């Protein structure tokens, strides 16, 4: 198919140098600027007319004739929606030609001058270890010192060049980012394709009042994304960018929809996007606030398994650092100390140390959890959800509501003792979901459900438990492997492994029972929900229209017990959510209730031809 009519003849390329997408478009990012390559070497400043007309001679929005084909407004429609191109057109060296650059309806903007400070410092930080190592090993000899100096100066110059050449502009329909001194690159992102605008600022950024803006856009391939990164703009500008980008996008989509579908039937959509207002909202309009972190919620950090392990991580890091700093002497010292010390003293020391560590675990957990979740807030604005959090590094993630297909409630056994859950969104084409899809921190279930209800729409159905046979399967799965190992170990007579395996097999019993108890699936007319897992229990809820396929898998064992794994395919999140060991007939009925048009043509009565 693809061969016949999928890929048409390629347009004759007018580029001399195809851009490798793997290469950083931003020359400052790679630690230096891109060297002039081959024939596309930059022309001298005096060559040709200025690439960007100066403010003194404004050009029509459609672009000046000297600008390459990629500057025309219609260009991004062909080929990949997000285009990046290197141009070989004659241009001015700095791309300024004097006054303020204009390349569209609106003035092109520069990054904040303060990024001149942040960029090199951030890059220097990653170079700090090699430089320090070089200095120490090289014994501060002049060559190393000179090289270091050159590197630092290079970084500063690189940062300056990046800042001088970097421009971005929000047009009516697209965002353009231009950068590069030698190899000019232009990235065009159609506003309709923007999926989210993330604003992140580390402590350093915040001290200088700037933030990094990442614009995530849908690329042509499913799941693939293309990003525009503005590192860094002032905080006010970041906020403006987010507002304007999302608003224009909403307006564009609205217009687009009016053109294509005069009557939009949306009654089936449970996660209804808010209608976009006609005008760009004022900066003080923060939309709806769904959630602000109450003080008591920070304590829930003590229930998060990942954060509970932080003392060990910190200890390991400290030990590693100590070892690196003092070398083998530390280890030798430790060994000496252990061998020479009194046995009783060592025992007491070990016990005290272990107790302190265990006592400190929750404290550390709460502290580190608070650092990352400080001032968590969830707001809704312009058809998007904005989640913001963090004390030192503040990150705010914007999720377009149109792309939110549902939500996940996650909890572990510890959290279940306090009836606490955390909330994640199931979003189409979102990378790094562990960080980006977080909608709420860990909190009491009723409160979380209340927020879900207001922000997304709550699943109100009941989960159908799975048949008893599923319990036996869960138990077999949790116990049998360890029991087998234990038996084998007894037969081959090493004692320790058999004891360990036996204990694990015993622990498998409550685990299996709990896994069975968490199994369930349900449908409330709009939302489909599937739950499974024990140590990390997940209840995934998606809207009905998000279900884009069904698959049943049945092993011979399952066939004997009349069970089946039913997976609902969703073009978002983890792409599939499985109802493990559901009753075979009930699962078919379940699918037929949710998407009758998909399932019913293939149903037969009991007396008909039975499925094999």
């Amino acid at each position, binding site marked *: 198919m693809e061969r016949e009519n999928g890929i048409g003849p390629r347009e004759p390329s007018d580029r001399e140098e195809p851009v490798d997408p793997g290469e950083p478009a931003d020359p400052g990012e790679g630690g230096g600027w891109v060297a002039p390559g081959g024939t596309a070497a930059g022309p001298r400043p005096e060559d040709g007319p200025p690439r960007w007309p100066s403010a003194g001679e404004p050009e029509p929005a459609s672009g000046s004739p000297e600008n390459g084909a990629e500057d025309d407004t219609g260009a991004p429609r062909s080929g990949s929606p997000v285009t990046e191109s290197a141009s070989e057109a004659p241009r001015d060296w700095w791309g300024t030609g004097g006054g303020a650059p204009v390349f569209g309806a609106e003035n092109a903007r520069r990054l904040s001058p303060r990024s001149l400070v942040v960029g090199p410092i951030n890059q220097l930080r990653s170079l700090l270890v090699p430089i320090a190592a070089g200095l120490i090993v090289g014994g501060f000899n002049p060559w190393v010192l000179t090289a270091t100096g050159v590197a630092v100066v290079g970084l500063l110059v690189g940062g300056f060049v990046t800042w001088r050449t970097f421009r971005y502009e929000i047009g009516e329909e697209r965002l353009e980012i231009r950068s590069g001194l030698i190899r000019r690159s232009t990235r065009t992102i159609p506003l309709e394709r923007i999926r989210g605008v993330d604003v992140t600022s580390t402590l350093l950024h915040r001290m200088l009042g700037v933030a990094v803006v990442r614009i995530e856009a849908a690329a042509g391939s499913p799941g693939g994304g293309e990003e525009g990164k503005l590192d860094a703009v002032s905080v006010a500008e970041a906020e403006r960018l987010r507002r304007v980008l999302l608003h224009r996008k909403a307006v564009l989509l609205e217009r687009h929809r009016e053109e294509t579908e005069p009557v939009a039937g949306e009654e089936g959509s449970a996660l209804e996007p808010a209608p976009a207002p006609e005008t760009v909202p004022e900066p003080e309009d923060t939309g709806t606030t769904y959630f602000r972190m109450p003080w008591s919620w920070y304590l829930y950090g003590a229930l998060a398994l990942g954060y509970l392990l932080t003392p060990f991580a910190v200890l390991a890091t400290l030990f590693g650092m100590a070892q690196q700093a003092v070398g083998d002497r530390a280890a030798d010292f430790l060994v000496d100390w252990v061998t020479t010390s009194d046995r009783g003293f060592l025992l007491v020391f070990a016990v005290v140390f272990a107790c302190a560590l265990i006592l400190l675990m929750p404290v550390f957990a709460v502290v580190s959890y608070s650092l990352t979740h400080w001032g968590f807030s969830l707001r809704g604005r312009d058809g998007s959800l904005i989640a913001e959090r963090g004390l030192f590094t503040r990150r705010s993630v914007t999720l377009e509501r*149109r792309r939110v297909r549902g939500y996940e409630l996650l909890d572990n056994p510890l959290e279940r003792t306090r009836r606490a859950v955390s909330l994640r969104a199931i979003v189409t084409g979102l990378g790094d979901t562990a960080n980006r899809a977080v909608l709420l921190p860990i909190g009491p279930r009723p409160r979380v459900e209340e927020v879900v209800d207001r922000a997304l729409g709550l699943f109100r159905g009941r989960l159908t438990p799975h048949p008893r046979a599923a319990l036996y399967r869960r138990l077999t799965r949790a116990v049998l492997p360890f029991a087998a190992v234990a038996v084998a170990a007894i037969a081959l007579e090493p004692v320790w492994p058999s004891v360990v395996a036996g204990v694990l097999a015993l622990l498998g019993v409550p685990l299996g029972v709990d896994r069975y108890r968490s199994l369930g699936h349900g449908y409330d007319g709009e939302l489909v929900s599937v739950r499974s897992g024990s140590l990390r229990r997940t209840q995934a809820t998606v809207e009905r229209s998000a279900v884009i396929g069904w698959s049943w898998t049945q092993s011979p064992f399952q066939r004997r017990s009349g069970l089946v794994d039913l997976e609902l395919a969703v073009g978002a999140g983890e792409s599939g959510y499985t109802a493990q060991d559901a009753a075979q007939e009930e699962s078919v009925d379940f699918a037929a209730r949710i998407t009758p048009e998909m399932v019913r043509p*293939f149903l037969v009565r009991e007396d008909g031809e039975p499925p094999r």
Partner: protein
Amino acid sequence: MNTPPHDAVPPPEGPFEPTTGAARLRPPLRRVSGRSIGVWTVRSILGGLINLVLLSVLAWAAGVLPWSWIPEWARENAWMLPTVYFVYALLRTAIVPSWRYRVHRWEVTEDVVYTRSGWIARHWQLVPVNRLQTVDHTQGWLERIFGVATLEVQTASYAGSSTIEGLDAEEARVLSEELAARAGTLRDDAT
């Protein structure tokens, strides 16, 4: 905003009453091409031969090379490895292709691609045509010899993608074109 066609149509209130156990999924109507048995058989034979050669070399090496860490019993019984594998491969080649042929079925209706595959474990899959993103029609060298092809339909979800192996080549070509055209007309956001 993102309104798939099955959402625009209210769930039909037909004669079908969703009482438990009243209805089952029937198997898809059509079998794959009988020539696919040949493909699977040849593939199994080739794979088996390669593994057999590797195992034989291993067994020979274990018997001949003067490595002291190989225990005596392993040295003596090394020939069992390729023999057992040979028997297994023979059984597999004899049984699995025809078994697969009996299980593998497919059906393409106006709106849905319905497939059944697997041999020991079975797999039923429903993929709605209006959510298709790509339709791939591939033919390896072995498949070309036997005149069959593989059709793969993909949606935005990895879990919602389906593969029909061993279709008649001409049929697969026509089908892939039809599906692609239909997906193009029906498709909205496809997620």
